[in-house]
Structure formats: structure tokens, C-alpha cells
């Protein structure tokens, strides 16, 4: 069962980020990187800020991550989350893939026990219509 109800906003892929979501649909977390110089970038962007190449490759992320920062959200800024308060939004990094941070949810732990630096592992949340979202739980 998905973390949030069906009324939750879904990704609406655009020209720049569609490959990211196509990978998520296949339960693959892949970050965009420059095909020429290898620099990672996220969210996806149409040109490399390092060498200005527009050629890209999609680099598989490890499933191990750690908490870079987080917030426990108690206020429903959107009606879809009203029954799920409080919930934890995390900003996570990947020790095996330096250079990129990802906004996600941290689940399966009481919010008061989440700590910066805590090791996490990836799980895929089936949000229906063939889309999956990367979320994380304590390793």
C-alpha cells in the first residue's frame, strides 16, 4: 500500500526529467550525469554545468544512502497528507555516489528517532499506474 493516498501529487515528467521517471517506473534509481566529463546533476538539467555538453548517461545509484538532513512535517500544506501527519521528508546522500542529494521520505521509524547520518536503504513505493517512487527506511 502506497505511503500517501491517490490524491497525492504525482510526478509529471517533462522533456528534461523523463528518463529519471522512466527508470523509476522500472524500480531503478538513476541519476543524470554528463556523458563527456561524468559530472552528476540532480534534478536533471539539459546541459552540463561543467563542460556544457548536452550528452547524458544515466548512472545507477546504490541502494544504501544516509540522512543529510530531514524535517518532521506536522502541518498539511496539501489536503492529501492530512491523514498521514506527521511524516518525515529527508534529504539523503549516497556514500557510494558522492555529488548528488535526493529529496525523499524516511519511513518505518518513529519520526523522533530519525538522525542526521543515519544509514538508510532504498525501497520502492508503488503509487499506481505503473509508477514507483524511491523512499528509504533505516538500514
Amino acid at each position, binding site marked *: 500500500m502506497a505511503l*500517501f493516498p491517490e490524491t*497525492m*501529487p*504525482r*510526478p*509529471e*515528467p*517533462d522533456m528534461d*526529467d523523463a528518463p529519471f*521517471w522512466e527508470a523509476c517506473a522500472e524500480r531503478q534509481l538513476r541519476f543524470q550525469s554528463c556523458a563527456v566529463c561524468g559530472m552528476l*546533476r*540532480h*534534478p536533471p*538539467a539539459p546541459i552540463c554545468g561543467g563542460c556544457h555538453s548536452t550528452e547524458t548517461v544515466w548512472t545507477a545509484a546504490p541502494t544504501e544512502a544516509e540522512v*543529510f*538532513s*530531514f*524535517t*518532521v*512535517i*506536522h*502541518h498539511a*500544506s*496539501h489536503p492529501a*497528507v492530512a491523514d*498521514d501527519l*506527521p*511524516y518525515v*521528508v529527508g*534529504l539523503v*546522500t549516497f556514500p557510494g555516489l558522492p555529488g*548528488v*542529494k*535526493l*529529496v*525523499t*521520505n524516511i519511513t518505518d521509524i518513529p*519520526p523522533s528517532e530519525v538522525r*542526521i547520518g543515519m544509514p538508510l536503504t532504498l525501497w520502492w513505493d508503488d*503509487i499506481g499506474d505503473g509508477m514507483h*517512487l524511491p*523512499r528509504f527506511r533505516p538500514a
Partner: protein
Amino acid sequence: MGTSARAPHIVGIGQSAYTRWGGIQDRSQFQITAEAIVAAARDAGLPVSAIDGLTSFSNDSNEGPVMQAALGIPELRWSAMVWGGGGGGSCGAVSLACAAIESGQAEVVVAYRGLCQGQGRRYGRAAPTRTHGNFIAPYGLFAPPQMLALMVQRFMHLYPITEDHLAEIALSFRANANRNPLAVMGDRTLTKEQYLASRWIAEPLRLYDCCLETDGAAAVLITTAERARDLVQQRVEVLASAHGSGAGWSTGPLGSQNMPNDTYASTNNRRLAKELFARAGLTPDDIDVAQIYDHFSGMVLMALEDFGFCGPGESGDFVAEGNIRHDGGKLPLNTSGGQLSEAYVHGVNLIIEGVRQLRGTSTAQVADARTCLVTGGLGVAPTSAILLGRN
């Protein structure tokens, strides 16, 4: 200071009444913005027809050329807006005005912002069109307090910053508002107990760590030193102004950005602050009073460090020692009550309060204040700041 005939000076300030969110329903946002511009011209003792430049920021919908027509301004010579949402560009709108004046492209420029959240969208609610929304909304990261809570959390992890220090920001600004009859929270006191008992919005931010949601408009009028000499008000020089952004900010909304890790828990102002002070020939020790953009309490602490009023990680001790209080502090902050307790006009109300301090007309006046730092929105891109001075 102020030796050049074209050195920019703020000679007029104008504002609407400030009300709680939805409090202005009988007049349009455009109307109260026009009224604030007229008030700034009257305050300066200039006819509205003398205005030849208009600047704003934050995708302000009160478009300059439309405003020109509405106000009957005969010739517009400068019309410009700083990119970016929120208050990041508030002082940037002043820096655009200064650029026009110093270069001779305009003579009298008004920087303004009108914001009726009751007539438009509430900033505390999810907005469907946020940049890179795909990478935040499906995870429930919808609104600025949630995004900047991520940065404040990291800041509190790295340094000895506690909820007592966040409380000191909220409480001292409220005490200032209680002296200001124009403040939305002017007659509402706040105690430490009430602060600690207030509900969480997004940890580590409680209700009173977050700015108000209000309706209002505010404007400042800027002209040359030469013209300022003949006008009625105590002239306030813009000693230096700056706006810009460091590497990697704007790669995602607010706290989700992929900026370098070592600048993550910062206000995106470290370079800007150094250059701003250098341009004015001042140091942080020279500043008598400051108006620091207070969308969220923890960001004000970060700004005290980034602008050099204390070292990295020392802002908690700095505020705990009473340094930001109007009553005896060495750097009184947000003397009108700021955006936590006066009004949220994306920071233009802070610029107005900076001018009042140097005119000697603040309701929490700092004795003989001669220099004031005002910042725009923190932890966003672009950011901006100005240094104001009185000869």
C-alpha cells in the same frame, strides 16, 4: 561616503496598512501597491510625475509599465525586476534602482512590492507550478517552511544551536512589534512558554518560528545625492547594494538544492556579504542596527554568521547574550517586529524600517543609528542586501 553627485539615496517611504492574510478585500492588490508608491513620493516631497523608474522582484504581478500608466507617469526610463520567488530579490530591487541612478539612466526610481495573499495564493500552501516540483511534491515537501526546515535542521546538527536560540529570535522581534502600532502583531505579546507550547509546523520550526501571512504593499523611492539635498526628509544613502547567488543554488527548490555540501547550511550570502561590506568600506563592527530577512527564525541565526557579526556556529551564543535586543543589544535586529511580527511584504517593510532607523523615527529607535544592514530573503537564489548610512 556620498561624495558623488549621483550617489543613490532613499528619500521616500510608503506603505499600505498591513493586515492579516485576507484582511484587504475591499481594494485590489494593484490599488494598494499604487497607493504605496504615491505615499513614497509624497513622503519625499516629490510629484508622482517625477518618478521615471520602477523596480520590483518575486514575479510581482503589479507590472511596472502598467503601474506607469495607472499613475500617469509621463516617461519611464527604467523598468526592471529581479528574478526569483519569495523575498530573495527585495534588496535586489533597490540595487537595480541604484544601478539606474548611478549610471544616469534614471533620476527617481521606486522599488516596490504588493502582496495580498488573500487575493492570490497563500505561500504556506502547495503550489502546482513550483520549479522542479516533480522532485518534491510527491514526497510531501510543499511549502517554504518545510524546505527551509531541512537547512535549519542541518545547521542545528553542525553547530550548538538550540530551540532557545530560535525562541530568542521570535521573542525579541515580537517585543519590538509590541512597540510598533503598524505591526500586525502590535498588541499581541509572546512569552517563552507560549513559544515552546506552539504547534510544530515542520521540525525544528514551530508556528512562531515562521513569518506571518499578511496583506500589504510597501515602496521606497531612490534618487541622486544631488536631488536628495533639496528634499524634505533626512536622506539615507545606499552605501552599497548587491544581489546574486553561489554555485549550485537553484538546482532545486529551497532546502532541496544540490549546492555544494559545505554551503548547504548557509544563507547563500557569504561572498555577497564580504563584497557588500568592502564596497561600503565598512565592517560588521561598524553596523548600528540590522533588519535581517526573517521568513524563518533559524535562517536569521545563519545570517548573523554569514554576514560576519559572529563566527561560524556562534550565533546561538550571540543572541543568548542579548546582543539582538532593542534594549541594550549591540546589534538590535528587526526593530519594527520584522516579518515574524510586523508584516510579510517580502522584505520591503524591512527596508522601510532601515530607513526609519536612520531618520530617527523608528518605534524602537536605536540611539544615533548611522548605519543599517538590510538583507533580502535567505537561503534562496538570488539573495540580496543593502547597507544604508546617514552622514
